[in-house]
């Protein structure tokens, strides 16, 4: 029973942000990342934090969900922080030991770079939290479709992605079942040396692969039976359409970019 599997980290909802066209959200996320990169000081970051907070409020996503997504990159943030802390050359050195030194500039840099990383990740989180994987795939397919003229397999990739998403829960359930079945035959997946444990996986992996191939085969046939012939001539039940709300969202991000440029120019809080 894997009923509670959530794919990716999508947080279902009906908010303004949820209902935005996925293409808008992808493009605006890229724009947001640019904003983070061009911002040269803490005031700019302040604006970005305010923007993220506002988005989270509008999307009705609790901040803890956004912070939860930071866990996997915590190590990278800490390393970035430490590298910048010790390695930045600055005038007013506070502490020195061999080649390592801490300066006021170093502290500023370290905080700045760590913050930048955190903001980059939280921003992209907003995208994945408010867009279902399937909408995301649709968006990417549509954005990359113009490139299919030069041979980029946009539809095929999107189809693959969607099938993978569809079958992940099925295969996880199957893995669990085969594991138990082999355990019932006395298999031991938990003890022994690394090599022994790797070998012990064979009774699990072989049936899993056999089953995955069988499923792929049957699925291909079922798709053909439903008149699938690749992306050509296909329509969509819910085609992506830009609406007025996409325009509003665009304005918000342009406003953010503009404000950041102003703070950069004003020089307040710039590092």
């Amino acid at each position, binding site marked *: 029973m894997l009923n509670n599997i959530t794919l990716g980290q999508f947080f279902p909802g009906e908010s303004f942000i949820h209902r935005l066209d996925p293409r808008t959200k992808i493009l605006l996320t890229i724009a947001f990342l640019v904003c983070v990169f061009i911002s040269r000081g803490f005031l700019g970051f302040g604006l970005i934090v305010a923007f993220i907070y506002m988005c989270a409020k509008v999307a009705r996503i609790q901040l803890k969900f956004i912070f939860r997504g930071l866990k996997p990159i915590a190590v990278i943030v800490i390393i970035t922080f430490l590298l910048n802390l010790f390695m930045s050359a600055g005038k007013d050195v506070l502490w020195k030991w061999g080649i390592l030194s801490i300066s006021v500039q170093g502290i500023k840099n370290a905080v700045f770079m760590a913050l930048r990383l955190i903001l980059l990740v939280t921003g992209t989180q907003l995208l994945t939290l408010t867009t279902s994987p399937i909408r995301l795939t649709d968006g990417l397919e549509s954005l990359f479709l113009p490139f299919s003229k030069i041979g980029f397999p946009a539809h095929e990739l999107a189809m693959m992605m969607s*099938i993978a998403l569809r079958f992940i829960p*099925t295969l996880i359930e199957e893995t669990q079942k085969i594991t138990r079945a082999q355990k019932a035959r006395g298999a031991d997946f938990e003890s022994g040396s690394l090599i022994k444990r790797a070998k012990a996986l064979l009774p699990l992996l072989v049936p899993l692969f056999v089953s995955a191939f069988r499923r792929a085969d049957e699925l291909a046939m079922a798709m053909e039976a439903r*008149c699938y012939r690749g992306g050509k001539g296909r*329509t969509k*039940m819910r085609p992506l359409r830009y609406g007025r709300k996409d325009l509003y969202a665009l304005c918000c991000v342009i406003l953010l970019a503009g404000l950041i440029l102003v703070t950069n120019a004003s020089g307040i809080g710039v590092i």
Partner: protein
Amino acid sequence: MQDNSVDIKLTDVSFKYDGAEKPALQSIDLCIGKGEMLAVLGRNGSGKSTLGKLLNGLFIPVSGSVCVFGREIKNEDDAYAARRHCGMVFQDPDNQMVATIVEEDVAFGCENLGLPSEEIQQRVSKALDTVGMSAYSKSAPHMLSGGQKQRVAIAGVIAMRPDIIVFDESTSMLDPSGREDIFELALRLNDEGVTVVWITHFMEEAARCQRLVVIDEGRIVLDDTPRKVFADVKHVKDLGLEVPDMTYLAWELNNSGIDISTDILTMEEMEAKLWGLMSGI
């Protein structure tokens, strides 16, 4: 000349899998009439599933001809045309769902046909309604039971408005109540005018169809009404199949000299017959 009362016509069809020694099907002649409810019965490996896949061009015969709505299937284009007429529901409910959301999955076939979006939406919601799955239109397939998944698969087929639906052992992985659900749905679709080819190894289902074709070792060995086919209990058993419970009971009683003929299929018939016999004592 196309005969309008015939949906599919197979003439002297043989089929062999790549690398197989024996052909899976040999000299099959079969006419499937408009609006028929045809059961195809046979043990595992008899070739009954292969037959199903010839009807919509998933397989193309080695020799002989398969005509769907008057057009012979010779290449991929013919096959595509045949599939617009002839939908198929498979055995494993998991392996025929493409999308992560029920309604998207139902829409898949219509999208392939290139229909306009509004029409797809209408057809999808109507199809989900027909199979009684409207409440689950936004659900993820892996949250559904086997029977529910199979109903979604059927919705995906009927949204394409086919004239014929082939069910390839679509109930064999379901529990009894799911099985009954799906079979009744097929009966209902048949009532509404869809030709149904019901491939199965459940005798009780075959008994409830209009016509029964039995396949053994790649050949059609019996083709008649279920009542007549099952009445010859010994022959059916020799083919590695069973007969419905009530037919078996009638056969047992008949063998011990009691005046009951073996053309009994249902419990109602048996009950009436026994009542008649006993009140006559």
